[in-house]
């Protein structure tokens, strides 16, 4: 009788442990790569692309990109996301500034889906910096703080937030679905850009 009781308890424990591990794996809470464990979340915009509002043509070509979706339109400019699969699976975004400018980036998928990606760019020397944040599901807004103490809260739509800052931005931050904060010191980038001098062609240091 006693033996049968302990056997029942042991079986119940084993079932509970297996269920807990299964639930964690199913939710993606333990997903990661390279032996590291990161919480990560999906990026739904990959699966419901915005209708092409301003361009009837094909999306501009970026080498090696597939699964392209339009996620935002700003005036005549369009922002796309897509994947690259070589040499590793990457989540990518790029902005097409008509007629021919723009830029973009690719991050390893498990990094973008666990901590997002923040970009700051200047299309011309001295132009106001444009900030883009590509974030996983559950991030509702980003906060941009400027050097003068002001801050701007920019809503996220289609996993994207875009803002052209007429002041000097110092940080970009957002809260992930698990409550963790991501903070990017973009002020350091601006400082570097402002003081950047061209290296000699073909040189490195």
């Amino acid at each position, binding site marked *: 009788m006693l033996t049968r009781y302990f056997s029942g308890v042991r079986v119940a424990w084993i079932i509970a442990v297996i269920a807990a591990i299964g639930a964690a794996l199913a939710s993606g809470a333990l997903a990661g790569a390279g032996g590291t464990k990161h919480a990560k979340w999906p990026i739904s915009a990959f699966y419901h692309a915005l209708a092409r509002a301003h361009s009837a043509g094909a999306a501009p070509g970026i080498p090696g990109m597939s699964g392209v979706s339009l996620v935002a339109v700003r005036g005549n400019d369009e922002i796309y996301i897509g994947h690259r699969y070589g040499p590793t699976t990457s989540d990518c975004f790029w902005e097409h500034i008509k007629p021919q*400018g723009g830029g973009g980036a690719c991050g390893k998928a498990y990094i973008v889906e666990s901590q997002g990606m923040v970009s700051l760019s200047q299309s011309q020397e001295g132009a106001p910096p444009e900030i883009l944040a590509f974030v996983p599901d559950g991030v509702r807004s980003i906060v941009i703080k400027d050097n003068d103490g002001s801050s701007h809260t920019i809503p996220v739509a289609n996993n994207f937030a875009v803002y052209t800052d007429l002041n000097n931005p110092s940080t970009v931050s957002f809260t992930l679905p698990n409550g963790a904060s991501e903070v990017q010191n973009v002020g350091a980038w601006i400082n570097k850009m402002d003081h950047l001098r061209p290296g000699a062609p073909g040189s490195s240091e």
Partner: protein
Amino acid sequence: MRKSILAVAASGLIIMGLAAAVPASAEYNYSCASCATINGPNETVRYNEGINYTFNQLCVVLWQNNGGGNYNTVGNKCVSGSWTTWTCSNVGSVNGHGEVYNSESAAHMAGHQDNRAC
């Protein structure tokens, strides 16, 4: 006879001058095993892409060459969480070069510049 020789020589000089003035228009790959910044050569460019093999942050620039060692940027982009980043000139093709740098420390980086449209 002397006039013909002078004409041929002048033509040769003009052709050589034009060849020197018009930069090559070809794609170019550049890399470093450990550096904070790396530059491609001057040529006709409007696209520059960089990769950081060491950590997930990098910046890319397109420099326009105005002559006499004078440059200005026609695209400058920094991204966190990325391992490749690119920028395209919105003023079209320029004589200049791409640069890849990061804001952290020396890293294994590479760049690819060319004249492709974005």
